[in-house]
Protein backbone atom coordinates (compact mmCIF):
# COMPACT_ATOMS: atom_id res chain seq x y z
CA UNK A 1 0.00 0.00 0.00
CA UNK A 2 2.80 2.38 0.96
CA UNK A 3 4.63 1.44 -2.22
CA UNK A 4 1.58 2.15 -4.39
CA UNK A 5 1.27 5.62 -2.86
CA UNK A 6 4.94 6.22 -3.48
CA UNK A 7 4.62 5.11 -7.11
CA UNK A 8 1.74 7.52 -7.69
CA UNK A 9 3.87 10.29 -6.24
CA UNK A 10 6.90 9.20 -8.24
CA UNK A 11 4.90 9.42 -11.46
CA UNK A 12 3.39 12.82 -10.77
CA UNK A 13 5.59 15.75 -11.83
CA UNK A 14 4.55 17.83 -8.81
CA UNK A 15 5.56 15.24 -6.19
CA UNK A 16 8.23 13.35 -8.10
CA UNK A 17 11.31 15.01 -6.64
CA UNK A 18 10.40 14.46 -2.99
CA UNK A 19 9.11 10.93 -3.61
CA UNK A 20 12.33 10.02 -5.43
CA UNK A 21 14.48 11.37 -2.60
CA UNK A 22 12.46 9.27 -0.13
CA UNK A 23 12.90 6.23 -2.35
CA UNK A 24 16.67 6.74 -2.48
CA UNK A 25 16.83 7.11 1.29
CA UNK A 26 14.82 3.93 1.77
CA UNK A 27 16.71 1.66 -0.61
CA UNK A 28 20.21 3.10 -1.09
CA UNK A 29 21.88 0.95 1.57
CA UNK A 30 20.24 -2.34 0.58
CA UNK A 31 21.01 -1.76 -3.09
CA UNK A 32 24.56 -0.64 -2.25
CA UNK A 33 25.31 -3.97 -0.56
CA UNK A 34 23.56 -5.93 -3.28
CA UNK A 35 25.78 -4.30 -5.93
CA UNK A 36 28.91 -4.38 -3.77
CA UNK A 37 28.69 -8.16 -3.44
CA UNK A 38 28.62 -8.42 -7.24
CA UNK A 39 31.31 -5.89 -8.24
CA UNK A 40 33.33 -6.03 -4.96
CA UNK A 41 35.05 -2.64 -5.33
CA UNK A 42 33.56 0.37 -3.51
CA UNK A 43 34.13 2.96 -6.26
CA UNK A 44 32.67 0.67 -8.90
CA UNK A 45 29.70 0.05 -6.62
CA UNK A 46 29.18 3.79 -6.27
CA UNK A 47 29.09 4.22 -10.08
CA UNK A 48 26.68 1.33 -10.55
CA UNK A 49 24.44 2.48 -7.69
CA UNK A 50 24.19 5.99 -9.15
CA UNK A 51 23.39 4.61 -12.59
CA UNK A 52 20.76 2.36 -11.04
CA UNK A 53 18.94 5.25 -9.39
CA UNK A 54 19.26 7.42 -12.51
CA UNK A 55 17.62 4.62 -14.52
CA UNK A 56 14.88 4.29 -11.92
CA UNK A 57 14.27 8.05 -12.08
CA UNK A 58 14.17 8.14 -15.87
CA UNK A 59 12.04 5.03 -16.31
CA UNK A 60 9.57 5.34 -13.47
CA UNK A 61 6.82 6.31 -15.94
CA UNK A 62 7.25 2.96 -17.69
CA UNK A 63 7.12 0.93 -14.46
CA UNK A 64 4.04 -1.26 -14.92
CA UNK A 65 3.44 -2.03 -11.25
CA UNK A 66 3.08 -5.76 -11.94
CA UNK A 67 5.80 -6.31 -9.35
CA UNK A 68 6.83 -4.49 -6.18
CA UNK A 69 8.96 -1.42 -6.82
CA UNK A 70 11.86 -2.77 -4.80
CA UNK A 71 12.04 -5.98 -6.86
CA UNK A 72 12.01 -3.79 -9.99
CA UNK A 73 14.87 -1.71 -8.55
CA UNK A 74 16.80 -4.84 -7.55
CA UNK A 75 16.39 -6.11 -11.12
CA UNK A 76 17.78 -2.86 -12.52
CA UNK A 77 20.65 -2.92 -10.01
CA UNK A 78 21.47 -6.54 -10.85
CA UNK A 79 21.42 -5.87 -14.60
CA UNK A 80 23.55 -2.74 -14.18
CA UNK A 81 26.11 -4.58 -12.07
CA UNK A 82 26.33 -7.55 -14.46
CA UNK A 83 26.53 -5.29 -17.47
CA UNK A 84 29.31 -3.31 -15.74
CA UNK A 85 31.29 -6.53 -15.28
CA UNK A 86 30.72 -7.57 -18.90
CA UNK A 87 32.01 -4.22 -20.15
CA UNK A 88 35.03 -4.47 -17.89
CA UNK A 89 35.80 -8.01 -19.08
CA UNK A 90 35.50 -6.86 -22.69
CA UNK A 91 37.74 -3.85 -22.02
CA UNK A 92 40.51 -6.03 -20.58
CA UNK A 93 39.81 -8.81 -23.08
CA UNK A 94 39.15 -11.21 -20.18
CA UNK A 95 36.77 -14.10 -19.83
CA UNK A 96 34.26 -13.84 -17.02
CA UNK A 97 36.31 -16.29 -14.90
CA UNK A 98 39.54 -14.37 -15.50
CA UNK A 99 37.84 -11.16 -14.47
CA UNK A 100 36.53 -12.75 -11.26
CA UNK A 101 40.06 -13.86 -10.36
CA UNK A 102 41.41 -10.39 -11.10
CA UNK A 103 38.73 -8.87 -8.85
CA UNK A 104 39.76 -11.19 -6.01
CA UNK A 105 43.41 -10.20 -6.48
CA UNK A 106 42.42 -6.52 -6.35
CA UNK A 107 40.48 -7.17 -3.15
CA UNK A 108 43.73 -8.02 -1.35
CA UNK A 109 44.94 -4.46 -1.87
CA UNK A 110 41.52 -2.81 -1.41
CA UNK A 111 41.47 -0.15 1.30
CA UNK A 112 37.80 -0.88 1.91
CA UNK A 113 38.19 -4.60 2.43
CA UNK A 114 39.25 -5.71 5.86
CA UNK A 115 38.43 -9.38 5.68
CA UNK A 116 40.38 -12.02 7.56
CA UNK A 117 41.71 -15.19 5.98
CA UNK A 118 38.40 -17.03 6.08
CA UNK A 119 36.52 -14.05 4.62
CA UNK A 120 39.03 -13.83 1.78
CA UNK A 121 38.64 -17.54 1.15
CA UNK A 122 34.89 -17.06 1.13
CA UNK A 123 35.18 -14.41 -1.59
CA UNK A 124 37.48 -16.69 -3.58
CA UNK A 125 34.98 -19.53 -3.26
CA UNK A 126 32.06 -17.30 -4.33
CA UNK A 127 34.10 -16.14 -7.34
CA UNK A 128 34.37 -19.70 -8.62
CA UNK A 129 30.58 -20.15 -8.78
CA UNK A 130 28.66 -19.76 -12.04
CA UNK A 131 27.08 -16.29 -12.31
CA UNK A 132 23.54 -17.36 -11.45
CA UNK A 133 24.61 -19.38 -8.41
CA UNK A 134 26.77 -16.48 -7.26
CA UNK A 135 23.81 -14.11 -7.40
CA UNK A 136 21.46 -16.55 -5.70
CA UNK A 137 23.94 -17.31 -2.94
CA UNK A 138 24.58 -13.64 -2.15
CA UNK A 139 20.91 -12.72 -2.23
CA UNK A 140 19.86 -15.58 0.02
CA UNK A 141 22.80 -16.00 2.37
CA UNK A 142 23.72 -12.39 3.04
CA UNK A 143 20.68 -10.35 2.02
CA UNK A 144 18.17 -12.95 3.21
CA UNK A 145 15.71 -12.18 0.43
CA UNK A 146 12.62 -14.36 0.06
CA UNK A 147 12.68 -16.88 -2.77
CA UNK A 148 9.49 -15.32 -4.18
CA UNK A 149 11.17 -11.91 -4.42
CA UNK A 150 14.34 -13.43 -5.86
CA UNK A 151 12.17 -15.21 -8.41
CA UNK A 152 10.74 -11.88 -9.53
CA UNK A 153 14.16 -10.19 -9.61
CA UNK A 154 16.03 -12.95 -11.43
CA UNK A 155 13.04 -14.17 -13.46
CA UNK A 156 13.70 -17.74 -12.38
CA UNK A 157 11.36 -20.25 -10.73
CA UNK A 158 11.49 -20.72 -6.97
CA UNK A 159 12.38 -24.39 -7.43
CA UNK A 160 15.37 -23.56 -9.63
CA UNK A 161 16.52 -20.91 -7.15
CA UNK A 162 16.38 -23.37 -4.26
CA UNK A 163 18.41 -25.88 -6.25
CA UNK A 164 20.97 -23.20 -7.21
CA UNK A 165 21.30 -22.08 -3.62
CA UNK A 166 21.73 -25.64 -2.36
CA UNK A 167 24.50 -26.34 -4.92
CA UNK A 168 26.21 -23.03 -4.14
CA UNK A 169 26.26 -23.67 -0.38
CA UNK A 170 27.67 -27.16 -0.88
CA UNK A 171 30.43 -25.94 -3.21
CA UNK A 172 31.42 -23.10 -0.90
CA UNK A 173 31.42 -25.34 2.17
CA UNK A 174 33.63 -27.80 0.35
CA UNK A 175 36.11 -25.09 -0.61
CA UNK A 176 36.20 -23.58 2.85
CA UNK A 177 36.67 -26.86 4.67
CA UNK A 178 39.24 -28.45 2.37
CA UNK A 179 42.77 -28.34 3.73
Amino acid at each position, binding site marked *: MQDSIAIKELKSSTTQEKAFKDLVEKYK*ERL*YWHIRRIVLD*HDDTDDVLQNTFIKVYRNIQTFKEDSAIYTWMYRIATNEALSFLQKRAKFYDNTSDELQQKMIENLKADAY*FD*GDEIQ*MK*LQQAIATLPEKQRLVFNMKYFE*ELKYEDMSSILETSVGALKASYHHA*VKKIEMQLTKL
Partner: protein
Amino acid sequence: MERKTSKNNKDFSVPKNYFSSFNERLESRIGTSEAIPKATGFMVPDGYLDEFSGRLWNKINQKRSSARTTKVRLFYAMSSIAAILILGFIILKPGNTMVTEQGEELTTFDINSYIEEGFINLNTYDIIETFEGVSLEDIQMTDPIPREEIIEYLNQNNIDNYTLTVE
Protein backbone atom coordinates in the same frame (compact mmCIF):
# COMPACT_ATOMS: atom_id res chain seq x y z
CA MET B 1 -7.94 -34.12 19.42
CA GLU B 2 -10.17 -31.10 19.28
CA ARG B 3 -10.23 -30.86 23.07
CA LYS B 4 -6.41 -31.04 23.22
CA THR B 5 -5.97 -28.23 20.71
CA SER B 6 -8.47 -26.15 22.53
CA LYS B 7 -6.68 -26.71 25.81
CA ASN B 8 -3.32 -25.75 24.28
CA ASN B 9 -4.79 -22.58 22.90
CA LYS B 10 -6.01 -21.60 26.32
CA ASP B 11 -2.87 -22.31 28.27
CA PHE B 12 -0.16 -21.24 25.82
CA SER B 13 0.21 -18.63 23.21
CA VAL B 14 2.65 -18.22 20.34
CA PRO B 15 3.98 -15.01 18.76
CA LYS B 16 1.87 -13.56 15.97
CA ASN B 17 2.69 -15.11 12.53
CA TYR B 18 4.81 -17.79 14.24
CA PHE B 19 3.40 -20.63 12.17
CA SER B 20 3.02 -18.69 8.91
CA SER B 21 6.72 -17.77 8.96
CA PHE B 22 7.92 -21.12 10.36
CA ASN B 23 8.86 -22.66 6.98
CA GLU B 24 10.83 -19.62 5.99
CA ARG B 25 12.77 -19.57 9.24
CA LEU B 26 13.41 -23.29 9.03
CA GLU B 27 14.70 -22.94 5.46
CA SER B 28 16.93 -20.10 6.53
CA ARG B 29 18.29 -22.15 9.44
CA ILE B 30 18.93 -25.15 7.21
CA GLY B 31 20.50 -22.91 4.56
CA THR B 32 22.87 -21.25 7.01
CA SER B 33 26.15 -23.04 7.26
CA GLU B 34 28.46 -23.02 10.23
CA ALA B 35 31.38 -23.28 7.84
CA ILE B 36 30.43 -20.09 6.00
CA PRO B 37 30.91 -16.78 7.83
CA LYS B 38 28.12 -14.19 7.68
CA ALA B 39 30.51 -11.24 7.83
CA THR B 40 32.28 -10.34 4.59
CA GLY B 41 34.93 -7.81 5.59
CA PHE B 42 33.67 -5.15 3.16
CA MET B 43 33.77 -1.57 4.46
CA VAL B 44 32.24 1.71 3.31
CA PRO B 45 34.02 5.09 3.56
CA ASP B 46 32.84 7.24 6.46
CA GLY B 47 29.77 9.31 5.60
CA TYR B 48 29.43 7.73 2.15
CA LEU B 49 25.78 6.72 2.51
CA ASP B 50 24.82 10.03 4.17
CA GLU B 51 26.28 12.02 1.28
CA PHE B 52 25.08 9.69 -1.45
CA SER B 53 21.65 11.29 -2.02
CA GLY B 54 23.14 14.78 -2.44
CA ARG B 55 25.71 13.58 -4.96
CA LEU B 56 23.11 11.58 -6.86
CA TRP B 57 20.78 14.57 -7.12
CA ASN B 58 23.63 16.78 -8.39
CA LYS B 59 24.40 14.21 -11.07
CA ILE B 60 20.74 14.04 -12.14
CA ASN B 61 20.58 17.84 -12.37
CA GLN B 62 23.84 17.95 -14.35
CA LYS B 63 22.50 15.40 -16.81
CA ARG B 64 19.26 17.35 -17.15
CA SER B 65 21.09 20.62 -17.85
CA SER B 66 23.48 18.88 -20.25
CA ALA B 67 20.51 17.41 -22.15
CA ARG B 68 18.98 20.91 -22.42
CA THR B 69 22.27 22.37 -23.73
CA THR B 70 22.53 19.64 -26.36
CA LYS B 71 18.97 20.36 -27.51
CA VAL B 72 19.72 24.10 -27.80
CA ARG B 73 22.94 23.38 -29.73
CA LEU B 74 21.09 21.01 -32.02
CA PHE B 75 18.45 23.66 -32.62
CA TYR B 76 21.12 26.25 -33.57
CA ALA B 77 22.89 23.73 -35.79
CA MET B 78 19.65 22.87 -37.59
CA SER B 79 18.84 26.57 -38.00
CA SER B 80 22.30 27.17 -39.46
CA ILE B 81 21.86 24.35 -41.93
CA ALA B 82 18.48 25.67 -43.04
CA ALA B 83 19.99 29.13 -43.50
CA ILE B 84 22.93 27.71 -45.48
CA LEU B 85 20.61 25.70 -47.70
CA ILE B 86 18.55 28.77 -48.52
CA LEU B 87 21.68 30.82 -49.09
CA GLY B 88 23.18 27.99 -51.13
CA PHE B 89 20.09 27.79 -53.26
CA ILE B 90 20.20 31.51 -53.94
CA ILE B 91 23.87 31.28 -54.85
CA LEU B 92 23.55 28.11 -56.92
CA LYS B 93 20.68 29.29 -59.04
CA PRO B 94 21.94 28.77 -62.64
CA GLY B 95 23.27 31.98 -64.03
CA ASN B 96 23.96 33.50 -60.62
CA THR B 97 27.50 34.38 -59.66
CA MET B 98 29.17 35.39 -56.43
CA VAL B 99 32.00 37.89 -56.31
CA THR B 100 34.60 37.27 -53.58
CA GLU B 101 36.47 40.01 -51.74
CA GLN B 102 39.44 39.34 -54.01
CA GLY B 103 37.28 40.13 -57.00
CA GLU B 104 37.36 36.55 -58.32
CA GLU B 105 34.15 35.27 -59.78
CA LEU B 106 32.90 31.88 -58.53
CA THR B 107 30.71 30.16 -61.04
CA THR B 108 27.74 28.00 -60.10
CA PHE B 109 29.63 25.01 -61.54
CA ASP B 110 32.61 25.65 -59.20
CA ILE B 111 30.41 25.75 -56.13
CA ASN B 112 28.37 22.70 -57.21
CA SER B 113 31.56 20.70 -57.76
CA TYR B 114 32.90 21.77 -54.37
CA ILE B 115 29.78 20.49 -52.62
CA GLU B 116 29.47 17.31 -54.69
CA GLU B 117 33.05 16.35 -53.96
CA GLY B 118 32.20 16.42 -50.25
CA PHE B 119 34.27 19.38 -49.19
CA ILE B 120 31.38 20.80 -47.22
CA ASN B 121 31.01 19.32 -43.80
CA LEU B 122 28.31 21.32 -42.07
CA ASN B 123 29.63 22.05 -38.63
CA THR B 124 28.42 25.10 -36.71
CA TYR B 125 31.94 26.35 -36.15
CA ASP B 126 33.00 25.76 -39.77
CA ILE B 127 29.97 27.71 -40.96
CA ILE B 128 30.78 30.64 -38.68
CA GLU B 129 34.43 30.58 -39.73
CA THR B 130 33.64 30.32 -43.45
CA PHE B 131 31.18 33.17 -43.49
CA GLU B 132 32.97 35.44 -41.04
CA GLY B 133 33.43 38.83 -42.69
CA VAL B 134 31.16 38.00 -45.62
CA SER B 135 28.40 40.49 -45.89
CA LEU B 136 25.12 39.58 -47.49
CA GLU B 137 25.40 42.85 -49.43
CA ASP B 138 28.43 41.39 -51.24
CA ILE B 139 26.23 38.77 -52.84
CA GLN B 140 25.07 40.03 -56.17
CA MET B 141 21.56 38.97 -56.92
CA THR B 142 20.58 39.35 -60.50
CA ASP B 143 17.47 37.29 -60.50
CA PRO B 144 15.34 37.07 -57.29
CA ILE B 145 14.05 33.54 -56.69
CA PRO B 146 10.37 33.05 -56.00
CA ARG B 147 9.44 31.69 -52.56
CA GLU B 148 7.66 28.65 -54.11
CA GLU B 149 10.89 27.56 -55.80
CA ILE B 150 12.82 27.74 -52.49
CA ILE B 151 10.19 25.62 -50.74
CA GLU B 152 10.18 23.11 -53.60
CA TYR B 153 13.97 22.89 -53.48
CA LEU B 154 13.97 22.29 -49.72
CA ASN B 155 11.28 19.64 -50.10
CA GLN B 156 13.28 17.80 -52.76
CA ASN B 157 16.57 17.88 -50.86
CA ASN B 158 16.72 15.92 -47.67
CA ILE B 159 18.98 17.74 -45.23
CA ASP B 160 19.69 14.42 -43.50
CA ASN B 161 22.14 13.73 -46.34
CA TYR B 162 24.49 16.31 -44.91
CA THR B 163 26.79 15.51 -42.05
CA LEU B 164 25.76 17.22 -38.84
CA THR B 165 28.32 17.51 -36.11
CA VAL B 166 27.23 18.81 -32.74
CA GLU B 167 30.22 19.81 -30.61
